[in-house]
Each structure stands twice: as structure tokens, then as C-alpha cells.
């Protein structure tokens, strides 16, 4: 149950787009671009609706520095995401992995949509085959009727 709710909150948070990013902190623009790219994939756990690229929370600054150090060391982006996931769980990832606990999150909306469309089609088809006497005759809107005079 709890996992489902965390999964659902992922879905909600995914819509929160980022506007302004925190200022870069080293002179190498190529490295900074990579730091920003990785950091914008990671959720800041202090202010959960922000990525660590956007956030000014102290932990986010530390984690950005960690990302920068790891990139300097030559670690891949994959390794950095794994490093963060090992410590903070899948919740740090803005794009959660597809696995058994996140199936509902990934495919739930599609299943709901398909179910809704199927129900609608079924109802419409059944109605189109009904005889006309199953429906009430058209009636004038009471509001449009002239008021009765006493």
C-alpha cells in the first residue's frame, strides 16, 4: 500500500517542471553542464518537489558537489545514479525504474484509460441497438415553458 502511494506521488511530482537552476560552481562549463544534467535527474529529499539541480538546500549543494567529484573521477552517469539510489532509494530518481513495485505507476494510467474507452464503447453499442421505446420522449425544458397564469 505504502509503495503504491510513493509510486503515485512520483507520478504527481513528474509534472512539476523546473524553471530556474542554481548557479554553477566551477569554471569548467562542460563539466558543469554534465553536473546539471545528472543533478536534474535526482530528487532533493529535503524539498521533495525539486531536483538537486534546482534546490538550494544544503544537502542538495553537498550532493551536487558529490556528483561533480564523481564526474571528475571519471564515473559514468549510471554509476552516480546507482550511488544515490543505494543511499536514498528509488525515490531520488525523477524517472523511476520499471520493476514489479512500479508497474502500477508506469502502466496504471494506460490501463485506466483503456478500461474507460472500452466501457464507453460497450455502453454506446448497447444503446445504439436499443429500440426507440426504451428512451423517454423528448420533453421541453421546464425553464423554457411559458409561466402558467392563475
Amino acid at each position, binding site marked *: *500500500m*505504502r509503495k503504491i502511494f*510513493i509510486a503515485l506521488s512520483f507520478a504527481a511530482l513528474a509534472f512539476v517542471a523546473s524553471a530556474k537552476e542554481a548557479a554553477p560552481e566551477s569554471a569548467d562549463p562542460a563539466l558543469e553542464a554534465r553536473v546539471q544534467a545528472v543533478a536534474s535527474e535526482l530528487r532533493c529529499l*529535503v524539498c*521533495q518537489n525539486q531536483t538537486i539541480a534546482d534546490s538550494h538546500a*544544503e544537502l542538495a549543494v553537498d550532493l551536487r558537489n558529490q556528483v561533480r567529484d564523481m564526474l571528475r573521477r571519471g564515473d559514468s552517469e549510471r554509476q552516480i545514479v546507482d550511488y544515490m539510489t543505494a543511499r*536514498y*532509494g*528509488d525515490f531520488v530518481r525523477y524517472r523511476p525504474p520499471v520493476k514489479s513495485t512500479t508497474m502500477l505507476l508506469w502502466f496504471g494510467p494506460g490501463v485506466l484509460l483503456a478500461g474507460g474507452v472500452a466501457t464507453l464503447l460497450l455502453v454506446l453499442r448497447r444503446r445504439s441497438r436499443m429500440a426507440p421505446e426504451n428512451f423517454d420522449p423528448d420533453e421541453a425544458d421546464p425553464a423554457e415553458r411559458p409561466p402558467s397564469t392563475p
Partner: protein
Amino acid sequence: MKKWQFLAPLGLFVVLLGFLTVGLNLNPREVPSPLIGKPAPAFALPRLDEPGQTIRREDLLGKVWMLNVWASWCVACREEHPILVEYSRKRAVPIYGLNYKDTRPAAMDWLARFGNPYDASLSDTAGMVGIDFGVYGVPETFIIDKQGVIRMKHIGPVTPEVLRDRIEPLLKQLNA
């Protein structure tokens, strides 16, 4: 069958109500830690009171212990502190502090003022050990078993209820 169809919206409402009841009672700040059941990360940090002395993860193997992440700048820690001081008198479990992103003078002053429940505090000035432990909201409390495996994590201030309902039963089980 057809007679009861009007109850369908009520049924849907009850299901929705169930989801809301559970969902609104969950604390979104409590993110389940992936570290539960895993060996505690390695660390080697200077003692707060004696910076010349280093405490390592290996030094604490063989006993069940509590790791409490705290800082003098942390407001919720002050709320939790008297409860830990009181609990430490029972000597139920060795309590180690992880003094997270703090300065030594401020931390020493804080302990002198509010009491020291810790067998020892470790200075994590840079916050790197905090990151290894997945710390994101101070105070946090971990229970680590004799093999050095993290068995429990509590986020936010420890309350008497948490001690009674979660920590004490776990300690009993781990020390058995």
C-alpha cells in the same frame, strides 16, 4: 441485480475514501531507506570530545548500538534531546551520536547545556558519512546489530512512543 446498481457510486466512493484515509495519513517525508538489512556503511571519524581519537565501524561490531544523527543547528534535535538523555540513563543500548555538519565548539557547547546522552559523538563536519547513511533530515536514528547491519531507521525526533513500540522490542530481539 439491476435493483442494486444504484449502489455502485457509493461503492466507488467507499474505495476512494479508503485510499484517501491511508494516503493522507502517510508521511511523505518518511522515505523508506534502502539501507535497512544492509551492512552499515564504513566510516572512520574523529570523536567530538577527543578529536585525536578515531572511531571506525569495525570498532562497534559485536554489540547492538544506536546511531543518532544530530546537530546544534537542528531545531527538532532539541525537542528530541531530553528524551534521549532520559533514555540513556536506562543504559539499554549504547548511543553514538553523529554530529552532522556542525562545528566542534557549537556542538560541545550544546551538549554541555542540554546534557550528553551519547557514549561518544563522531564529528561528520563535511557531512560525507551522513550521505553514506542516506541522511536527509536531521535528527535520524539507526539501530545497528552485532554484525554491523542496519536494522531500523527512524526519521525525525525519537518520541517515547517510538522508543517503546519500535526500538525496545527490536533491541530485545537483537540482544536475545
